[in-house]
């Protein structure tokens, strides 16, 4: 029996090659998209799970609540002391591991590099995390201070092929680190990557007192390993008392909690994440897209099979006559569609292999189909194909098996009107999905354009940024600047503690005139050198910037932005001359904050210092070059390579032991929206695919519709209809369908994009334009698909058509 079904299925395929190809191709594309997305989702969900004890590892996180505004913010970093205090108060936590990130200059021989993925870490780190140590003893490697463990790649970078164990690396200017271990490949799906792990035992030597003791200095990430059976909720319940006991000044307005390690990658968006995380929202969104596209493909399949049922009608009738009952026929047709589905699966797998490199590029991963290792994947694939085959084949199977032999054998079945209503619904649904994807893509790109083109308030072109300048070099800024300005192509330069397109991360308390001390709002603070505003091209609403000509500017002058002025209840004009105070660190060794008091001398216009996702916040600027770890240099647009060469030379004159590392401000700016750009590309691609698959389906349907109406067309032509009359007639019903599809898609797209745009403090308005455009585009494509068929049918000789009977 099975053989009979197979034979018929295969021969049917071969007889109608075009339609079979459309069917299989459409389903294959749907399956391929599904597979790619599932690979992505599987990867995202697997972050940090490779640690043996992953289920018991938690990260200590703080949530701040601004009592005035009610806004909350979360921070992943905590104070250094936290770990020791936790150890005493919570004995059921056997291990507490701190990670402290550094960007030191590491050297060996004449190789010197800044290493941005360097962490000081507590020695029992290997008891908690399953990092693969291939050389060295995990129990003792980091027990001593000034020891370090590095990845194989780093070892090769510094030591070439020599054995790295026991070798000594230079750390900074005057310290040494002994290599006590080598790490194998750290799995890619970790919420952060690192190259060096060095013993935290050096803390007392290297960190200043403020960092070591102050509860407000948040410099380390703290991870806890709970004993088996200990519940995190139980520990969290004791935190309020814990805070009151050790840091009563923070008890108000802060809440401590534990983040499960495996949740961090997808659910954590605190300030100060080690690396940007993914987002569970994308996992949901992409999963939804996968389901959508598969649905569209299945719908196509359903539609085409049902439409073609007329040609199978006689077979169905005959089989019933010779004794088949309905369930046997259902089996037969379901079996056929599952068979086709598996053919499509083969094609889909081939498509996936072909497109993996490009897809990996999009999502920044290294996904692959691990056939041998990944049993879940194989089952998953087979399952999906089975599922698609059954879903797609169910409607046609039930539809066709219901044919009565009586109707069929006399030729009165046309496979037509009965199913047509449902089929129309399916086509409308397909186009609704396509229109949705088109509109979403359009809006994402629209917002991106907006981000790129919005007036930032400063000029980001042609500004060279040197970042990460250590304190010891900052006193040379003036001299360095004067040297640079001798080159006519250097327009201006200034030091700054924060670079636009970065984050403002220094919320410092203030003393403002008219406010009692506790109530004066704390504000983001940027410590700058002279010419900061000129270098960035920022303009003033009132007053002036800092100038060397006014000696008090150095010690007692402040510039506020408009947002700061508003927060204080002042106007730009009356702010000038008001008393103001802020803080800075005078002595880096002792790490003490001191107050600086003076007056407001200028109000600068608001700029988008951070990404457009953030609202513009109050910012205070004042001169304090020793706090400025970055240097901005505005250069002329011509001959940039030459200018860079000059800058490098000068830098090395002043800092012979430091490599010259720079970036451009506008490149950093573009990085901000890299995620959205990727999103746009992904949605765009999926929109294309969805429309393509929907058109495949439409093409198939249209050709059947015309075939079915051949006789009708012939008669109409004989009676005098023109080609365009016929085309109009055939297209009418599809145009209506696409119209309905739009009406479904628009509100859904509007709602979804509104939510997405909420993330941005500065966003485009959702006007009707993009929706209408999306609808028109879909309409044009649909018409093009359908009219090709219609024109062909309309041009045919009516005599041939009428001879049909």
């Amino acid at each position, binding site marked *: *029996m099975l053989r*009979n079904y197979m*034979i*018929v299925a295969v*021969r*049917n395929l071969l*007889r109608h090659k075009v339609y079979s190809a459309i069917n299989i191709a459409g389903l294959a594309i749907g399956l391929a998209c599904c597979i790619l997305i599932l690979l992505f989702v599987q990867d995202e969900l697997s972050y940090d799970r490779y640690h043996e004890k992953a289920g018991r590892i938690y990260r200590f996180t703080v949530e701040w609540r601004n009592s005035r505004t009610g806004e909350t913010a979360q921070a992943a970093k905590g104070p250094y002391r936290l770990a020791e205090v936790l150890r005493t108060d919570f004995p059921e936590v056997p291990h507490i591991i701190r990670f402290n990130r550094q960007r030191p200059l590491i050297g060996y021989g004449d190789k010197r590099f800044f290493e941005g993925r360097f962490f000081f870490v507590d020695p029992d780190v290997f008891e908690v995390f399953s990092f693969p140590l291939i050389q060295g003893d995990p129990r003792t490697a980091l027990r001593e201070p000034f020891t370090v463990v590095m990845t194989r790649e780093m070892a090769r970078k510094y030591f070439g092929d020599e054995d790295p164990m026991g070798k000594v690396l230079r750390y900074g200017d005057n310290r040494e680190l002994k290599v006590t271990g080598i790490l194998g490949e750290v799995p890619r799906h970790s919420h952060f990557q690192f190259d060096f792990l060095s013993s935290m035992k050096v803390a007392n030597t290297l960190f200043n007192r403020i960092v070591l003791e102050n509860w407000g200095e948040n410099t380390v990430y703290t991870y806890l390993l709970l004993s088996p059976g200990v519940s995190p909720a139980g520990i969290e319940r004791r935190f309020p008392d814990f805070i009151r006991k050790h840091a009563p000044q923070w008890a108000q307005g802060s809440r401590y909690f534990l983040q499960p390690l495996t949740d961090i990658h997808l659910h954590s968006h605190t300030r100060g994440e080690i690396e940007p995380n993914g987002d569970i929202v994308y996992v949901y969104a992409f999963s939804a897209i996968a389901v959508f596209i598969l649905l569209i493909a299945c719908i196509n399949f359903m539609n085409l099979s049902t439409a073609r049922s007329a040609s199978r009608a*006689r*077979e169905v*009738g*005959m*089989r*019933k*006559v*010779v*004794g*088949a*009952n*309905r369930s*046997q026929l259902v089996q037969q047709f379901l079996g056929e569609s599952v068979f086709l589905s598996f053919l499509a699966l083969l094609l889909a797998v081939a498509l996936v292999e072909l497109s993996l490199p490009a897809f990996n590029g999009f999502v920044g991963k290294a996904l692959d189909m691990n056939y041998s290792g990944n049993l879940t994947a194989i089952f998953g694939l087979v399952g999906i194909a089975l599922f698609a085959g059954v879903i797609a084949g169910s409607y046609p199977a039930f539809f066709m098996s219901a044919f*009565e*032999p*009586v109707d069929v*054998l*006399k*030729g009165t079945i046309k496979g037509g009107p009965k199913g047509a209503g449902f089929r129309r619904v399916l086509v409308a649904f397909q186009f609704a999905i396509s229109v949705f994807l088109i509109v979403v893509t359009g809006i994402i790109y629209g917002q991106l354009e907006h981000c790129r083109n919005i007036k930032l308030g400063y000029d980001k072109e042609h500004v060279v940024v040197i970042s990460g300048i250590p304190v010891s070099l900052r006193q040379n800024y003036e001299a360095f600047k004067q040297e640079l300005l001798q080159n006519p192509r250097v327009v201006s330069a200034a030091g700054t503690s924060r670079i636009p397109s970065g984050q403002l991360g220094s919320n410092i308390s203030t003393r403002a005139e008219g406010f009692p001390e506790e109530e004066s709002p704390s504000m983001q603070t940027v410590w700058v050198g002279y010419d900061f505003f000129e270098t960035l091209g920022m303009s003033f609403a009132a007053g002036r910037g800092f100038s060397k000509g006014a000696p008090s500017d150095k010690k007692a002058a402040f510039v506020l932005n408009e947002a700061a002025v508003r927060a204080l209840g002042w106007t730009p004009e009356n702010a000038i001359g008001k008393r103001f105070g802020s803080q800075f660190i005078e002595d880096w060794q002792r790490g003490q904050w001191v107050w600086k008091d003076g007056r407001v001398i200028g109000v600068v216009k608001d700029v988008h210092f951070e990404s457009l996702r953030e609202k513009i916040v109050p910012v205070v600027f004042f001169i304090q070059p020793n706090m400025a770890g970055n240097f901005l240099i505005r250069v002329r647009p011509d001959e940039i390579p030459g200018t860079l060469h000059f800058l490098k030379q000068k830098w090395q004159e002043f800092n012979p032991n430091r490599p010259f590392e720079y970036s451009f401000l506008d490149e950093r700016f573009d990085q901000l929206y890299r995620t959205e750009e990727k999103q746009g590309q992904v949605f765009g691609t999926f929109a294309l695919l969805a429309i393509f698959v929907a058109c495949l389906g439409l093409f198939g349907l249209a050709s059947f519709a015309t075939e079915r109406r051949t006789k009708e067309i012939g008669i109409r032509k004989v009676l005098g209809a023109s080609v365009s009359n016929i085309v109009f007639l055939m297209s009418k019903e599809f145009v209506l369908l696409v119209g309905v599809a739009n009406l479904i898609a628009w509100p859904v797209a509007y709602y979804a994009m509104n939510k997405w745009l909420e993330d941005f403090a500065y966003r485009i308005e959702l006007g009707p334009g993009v929706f209408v455009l999306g609808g028109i585009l879909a309409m044009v494509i649909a018409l093009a698909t359908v009219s090709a068929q219609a024109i062909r049918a309309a041009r045919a000789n009516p005599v041939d058509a009428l001879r049909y009977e």
Partner: protein
Amino acid sequence: MIKTNNLKKVYTTEEVETTALNNVNLQVQPGEFVAIMGPSGCGKSTLLNLLGLLDNPSEGEFYFLDEEVSKYSERQRADLRKANIGFVFQSFNLIDELTVGENVELPLLYLGVSPAERKTRVDEALEQMQIMPRKNHFPQQLSGGQQQRVAVARAVIGRPKLILADEPTGNLDSAHGDEVMKMLTELNEAGTTIIMVTHSSAYADYAHRVVHLFDGHIVTENIKERRDA
């Protein structure tokens, strides 16, 4: 074998009610060869459909092999049909995707016959209809007469008690038509009951009895040979 009492069949579309058959009383004895004649639209095919258990009557009783089947479900009719009735149609109704052999084999698949036995019986039937050389050809490759022979082979392979033929010679020229009638007669002489719908009185003459239908009623019968139970 067959007895109908006041058989009535009404077709209802949206607004129109068509009475295809009315007050049909028919008896057919085992081994009889009955021809049904009448002008177009008189209900011949409808009657054949009812007799072949392809459809249910709207009213009336229908005894098939002493069972009252007028209210049988589709499944029950199918089971009864595949065990007892073979069909031959005017337009052959062979499945284009199957070869001659596979077409003929089809009823046996639904009867659950074993592969070995299927093969023997198929070869037997093909020999009987003298179409064996074409076993692996497709219907499109055969002439009309050959296709009908295949259809007859398919009809008899289940060893049915009854064969229903709906204008079996309608699409054939006279030589082939004669051939088909000869086959039917042979089958009948071997014991199979045959009910045949036809337009041609010449071919109706092959039968023992001719029943005339007009506007859904039986109007007259010509009896050539009465065959009693």
